[in-house]
């Protein structure tokens, strides 16, 4: 059983490495890398599900009787797109955090937040282009 299902062990190890990286690292970009590994593990799990022994790629061809199952592959294409969107959004947030705090280490971000709170300095989201944030700019 272990031999036949080796791909699932491989996928499982990949997922756990990714999850560990997410939990253990304070650097936001490293967290995203871990998240990607975790997701890729799941993608490979789905792709492995579609594999049929001696099956060819699911493109109709003369003289080929056995094809791999295309449905899991199509499904995971959707999930890959979602993964790309998640990664790009995460990286965009990391850039914004770097602009706002000057660091992408989670502990330092929290430290600087606490320091700013004690100083009572403004800690608004975004830069000088935001005006009227605190005032009652909005009329009824």
């Amino acid at each position, binding site marked *: 059983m272990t031999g036949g299902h080796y791909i699932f062990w491989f996928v499982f190890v990949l997922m756990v490495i990714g999850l560990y990286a997410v939990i253990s690292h304070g650097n936001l970009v490293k967290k995203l890398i871990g998240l990607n590994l975790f997701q890729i593990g799941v993608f490979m799990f789905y792709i492995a599900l579609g594999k049929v022994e001696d099956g060819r790629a699911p493109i109709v061809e003369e003289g080929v009787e056995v094809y791999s199952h295309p449905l899991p592959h199509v499904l995971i294409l959707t999930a890959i797109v979602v993964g790309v969107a998640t990664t790009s959004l995460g990286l965009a947030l990391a850039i914004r955090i770097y602009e706002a705090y000057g660091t992408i280490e989670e502990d330092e971000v929290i430290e600087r*937040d606490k320091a700013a709170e004690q100083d009572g300095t403004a800690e608004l989201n975004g830069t000088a282009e935001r005006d009227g944030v605190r005032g009652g700019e909005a009329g009824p």
Partner: protein
Amino acid sequence: MTAHLPALQVVIPLLAAPLCVLLRSRTIAWLLFLAAAVAALVCASVLAWQVADGEVIHYAMGGWEPPAGIEYVIDRANVPVLILVAAIGVAAAVYCRASIAAEIEASRIPLFYACLCLNLTGLLGITATGDAFNAFVFLEITSLSSYALVAMGRRRRALLAAFQYLIVGTIGATFVLIGIGLAYAVTGTLNMADLAQRLPDIYGNRALGAAVIFVFVGLAIKMALFPLHGWLPGAYAESPSAVSVFLSATNTKVAIYLLLRFAFGVFGAALVFGRMPITEVGLVLACLAMLVASAVACFQSDFKYLLAWSSIAQVGYIVAGFSLATSDGVTAAYLHVINHAVIKGALFAAAGIVVLRLGAARLSDMAGMGRTMPWTFAAIVLAGLGLVGVPPTAGFVSKWVLAEALIADGRWAVLAVLLVSSLLSLVYVGRVIEAGWFRRHSESVAVERPPLTMSAAMWALVLVSLVFGLVPEWPLSLAEGASSVLVGVAK
């Protein structure tokens, strides 16, 4: 035309989103979101009327017949959630125009509405779909737009809150994906009804057990069940006011609906509650959520954080309800989903007005607001009493139904926890009232009246919560209808 309603209610907000981005006008984007929410509400109401007698509407998306094609299923279990999401969407749309103008820079506002439209699409899609993988896709549409919405918060802290939400939320959604993949591996289908048919033959299969656990843990993250609630306080408290109103009332609720659908409509109660100890695990976690989150809420110094922690506690009530797996318990869960969404929406709407007028929502800033902002304060008191569960409010009705369900099942310990948690909620709501009414601000400041649209949306939600408390027949009949579909025991 009405034959296409199940698809239209999802497609209209989906089409509104790119239009918001392309047209780049704040007013048009707002009108588009409002129109999309109203259209969704109309669709949901008509659907509710169509399925009221127990009929089930099956809609084959694009004409592809299930199980190969994606199917939308509308029955009495999901119309309450559809109506809830769409109605809160309308309230948030009315609320957000003035609120957002003060919080987000002008150039980003059309994009903000695009995200809100996508969020609405995702929530309605999760609720309407009858396909497990499609539910995952909509879950991710909702989540991705939520991360972007949270990141637009007023303070820079919103960015980190959004990032943490993104990491945790993605792990949750990926867990759901693994679970669905395992269920697919053992059955070869993704259609929920088809899965439900094929799964009983292989109860006891280890991969199936893993599938249940992965889906449940993933959704428990999405619905912020203690101890997987870490993302929630930051995400709710730091997001723009209008987003707090919308997310707090809908996001976790839809995740709860999806969990119920998976538990009763896909895996089957016999497996989930019979063979696996989900009842016990659910009740223990629900009790911890009720106690710990309520206690933490008592120590918050910021009104929005206090409300966020209270939300985690309220999720505990809902989980306690459906963990019983009895028809009464599921009724109580549904009823609390509806009532709590309305109450928490009203409270976050009030918090948004406080932030707009007083600059922040710390309890120390709210000192004396009972005199400077009497109407907003009155709304906080009324909705707050609903949160505690004082008799003529909606919160009382759902807690009463939940208590009855617990007694009928002989769960006295959980009932005791419920009472303690209610007392704790009296403490944290009491702290807000104490700050607003009994403490005086050092200097008396004249506070401008809040924008009319914002107070209108807030009062609409408060009044709905009072009406649901005084005449609970309609929400109760919706909840009973839902539980009769899910549990299969008609009352």
